[in-house]
């Protein structure tokens, strides 16, 4: 079975500072990896995904993530954050082989941007 661990439940950052949200996964098979963002009182929105190819993936709103197979990690980064990035961020993994593509989610990281 797959699992996802988001290492920080809360991350406070000052505006315009860089940020990294950490995600580790475990799986015995090839995986697809995702980051989603949830703004207050909304559903989840896809930030970026890794399916294959380049291990550095660029997403919306200036975010990027790097797939590291040896460390089973998929950390999310942004070089300079804005107040509008305040949200909850979820890392997720799915089996790259099995049908239906069930996603397993981490517990979430609440990113708070302070002025």
């Amino acid at each position, binding site marked *: 079975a797959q699992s996802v661990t988001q290492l920080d439940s809360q991350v406070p950052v000052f505006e315009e500072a860089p940020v990294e949200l950490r995600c580790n996964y475990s799986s015995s098979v090839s995986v*697809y990896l995702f980051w989603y963002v949830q703004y207050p009182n909304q*559903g989840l929105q896809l930030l970026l995904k890794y*399916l294959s190819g380049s291990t550095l993936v660029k997403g919306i709103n200036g975010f990027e993530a790097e797939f590291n197979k040896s460390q089973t990690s998929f950390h999310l980064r942004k070089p300079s954050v804005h107040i509008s990035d305040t949200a909850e961020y*979820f890392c997720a993994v799915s089996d790259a082989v099995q049908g239906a*593509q*069930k*996603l397993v989610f981490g*517990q979430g990281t609440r990113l708070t941007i302070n002025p």
Partner: protein
Amino acid sequence: DVKVTQSSRYLVKRTGEKVFLECVQDMDHENMFWYRQDPGLGLRLIYFSYDVKMKEKGDIPEGYSVSREKKERFSLILESASTNQTSMYLCASSLFAGYTFGSGTRLTVV
């Protein structure tokens, strides 16, 4: 863009009531999912469906059932609502990799 619509944003129901949460997607996706979201626990899969009239249990199916009579609609049913089912419920659909989510239904059982 794919749109996933959940019929209610907020619901308040009484203990013991039968509750229906409706979800509709407009892009002919094969797969649909119901998750519940609770603070500190992330999203947990309740049920999913990969075709009409097909359903599979997720990680926490107890106390829930589902119905998928048409491809675009996936309903979550709480047979007899209990206070521990107070939560945010999220519906999603997918064709291949990655989901499109609805806005969620915040259910309170009193």
